[in-house]
């Protein structure tokens, strides 16, 4: 069975060979460096890289946004880890990252296998991709209607004779609901990416499988998984990066839930950062807020490096 996964002679476009181009052309092109790359480089550096570095610097200071900065070294970080609110937010971020991430991957992969050769695949695929293009906030607001006491879910349950539905929107139940919602709106996107990977597998591998009498599981194990492994890696990196940013769906989840700030049970590090710096209710603590943001950046970096190491395999060309 194993030889099924071994690709035929790798057809590879030798990119380096194509780029010779002749030295005159290259020299002329090189003169375009400043006008072509310059503007992008400057804007990106000033508006993205410098702020990111500045954030690291702020995180080592105690600062209310105005007045002098007070260098405290790792003080902000130490304080964060004794702050219950931060630990809870950080825990929620991890829950989103790992639990929702795992759910998304299992479902998306299962959907991919079902979608692979079914009728109406194009329509199904296009429909489930759409939520990715909608502001996640919308789903947060809608959840308020779907789950409110006289809302869609409860009236539906009542029709099935459930008279005592759980209080969906109570503060303790909000975060699990957010996790379910996130799974729902993100699965379609990752299914599309995985599909793109599965679609690249040439059909003769499946034909070979059929001839060799491989069952569905063996086909999955020896053909589909090895050939889409790199796509899985990319998806994992993408989810790591985007899950840490989740903000707006939480900010507004359940509609108008009160004081203009979500209940602390649902906070993530992004929300923690925003509230600590801009809530307007207490003295803004830019240092602590930046430290929280820098920690989420550190989390992303560590995980992405780990993922790259774990997912690294001999790339299979086909």
């Amino acid at each position, binding site marked *: *069975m194993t030889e099924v996964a071994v690709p035929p002679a790798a057809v590879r476009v030798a990119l380096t060979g194509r780029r010779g*181009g002749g030295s005159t*052309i290259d020299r*002329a*092109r*090189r003169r*375009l*460096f400043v006008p072509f*790359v310059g*503007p*992008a*480089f400057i804007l*990106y550096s000033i*508006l*993205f890289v*410098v*702020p990111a570095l*500045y954030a690291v610097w702020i995180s080592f200071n105690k600062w209310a*946004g105005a007045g002098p900065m007070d260098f405290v070294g790792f003080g902000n970080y130490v304080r964060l880890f004794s702050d219950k609110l931060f630990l809870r937010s950080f825990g929620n971020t991890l829950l989103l990252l790992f639990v929702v991430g795992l759910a998304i991957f299992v479902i998306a992969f299962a*959907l991919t296998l079902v979608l692979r050769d*079914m009728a109406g695949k194009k*329509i199904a*695929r*296009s429909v489930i991709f759409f939520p990715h*293009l*909608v*502001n996640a*906030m*919308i789903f947060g*607001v*809608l959840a308020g209607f779907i789950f409110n006491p*006289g*809302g*869609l879910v409860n009236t539906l349950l009542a029709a099935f004779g459930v008279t005592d539905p759980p209080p969906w929107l109570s503060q303790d139940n909000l975060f699990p609901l957010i996790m379910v919602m996130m799974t729902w709106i993100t699965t379609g*996107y990752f299914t599309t*990416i995985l599909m*793109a990977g599965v679609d690249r597998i040439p*059909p003769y591998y*499946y034909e070979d499988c*059929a001839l*060799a*009498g491989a069952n*569905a599981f063996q086909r999955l194990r020896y053909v589909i998984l090895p050939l889409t492994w790199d796509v899985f890696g990319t*998806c994992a990196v993408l989810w790591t*990066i985007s899950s*840490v*940013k989740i903000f*707006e769906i939480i*900010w*507004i989840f359940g509609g*108008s839930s009160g004081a203009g700030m979500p209940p602390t049970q649902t906070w993530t590090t992004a929300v923690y*950062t*925003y509230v600590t*710096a801009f809530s307007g209710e207490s003295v803004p603590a*830019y240092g602590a807020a930046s430290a929280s*943001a820098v920690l*989420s*950046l550190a989390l*992303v970096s560590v995980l*992405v490096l780990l993922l790259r190491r774990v997912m690294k395999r001999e790339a299979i060309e086909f």
Partner: protein
Amino acid sequence: MTSTVTDQTTRTLVMPPQRNRPRPRRAAIGRDRSVVRGVGLVLLWVFVVLNVAWMVWMVIQAFRDTRSILADPWGLPTSLDPVNFVTAWTVGDFATATMNSVVTTIVSSFLTVAIAAPAAYYLSRVENRLTSSLTMYFVLGLGIPAQVIVIPLFVMLNEVYLTDSLIGLNLVYIGVSMPFTVFLLTAFFRSLPLEMEEAAALDGTTAFGTFWRITLPLAKGGILTAFVLQVISHWNETLLALTLLQSTEKYTLPVALISFIQQQTYSGADWGGLFAGLCIVVLPMLVIYLWLGRRLTEGLTLGMGK
């Protein structure tokens, strides 16, 4: 193992399965008929239907008044009177917000692509140590979450009086979008054939002329994709807009929606108006998706596998 394999192989080869109805050839090979697959199919279609249903439901509710929505969330509107849209447009001040969003989105997306395309072109055509480290430098930005830069950006823009300003917001969007756009377009330019450019260069066209008159027209598709992807992400961007804008007349749609929801905490809920607001945010995305759907999914999945 070996024996069963040979066994089945022989059987397949020797006795082609007799079927009552003719089936397409592919189906006989790729498809399993199992219970698991049946369940999967049902769940998939439920998922698909749910994904359409929420939108249909949202649009329907936008035509009903608050009291009837609360009385019966499954009901249908009695008329197609767009009163909720009028309320949202005037009372909720979605008119200004929509204007701001449209202008900001289009201007910032256009400038993003206009600035990123030449850079991506250069990075894809000239290969040396400098360009590969520059490409890396741009790509690194993909991993930085927005909350990291939001505080420094606020402080920095405040210094130059660009907070609470749409110009400031546009600048921020352009800077923040560079990594993705440069990354996407570099991958795209790499996929274009080089022969025409070489021919043009041999004919004496300048390097800039080659880019402007040969590569750009060839790359129209990819550039449009990059532009529309930016339109979508800038239209939906919330955290930066929420932080950088303070006065109502500067709000973009997501911020206006948040403030509309928060007002309702005090003035009593206007669900109908809120649904109309949601529609104003969602439906333009739907139109774009229906128009360019396939291209967008390809754009978002190209470059990913590499």
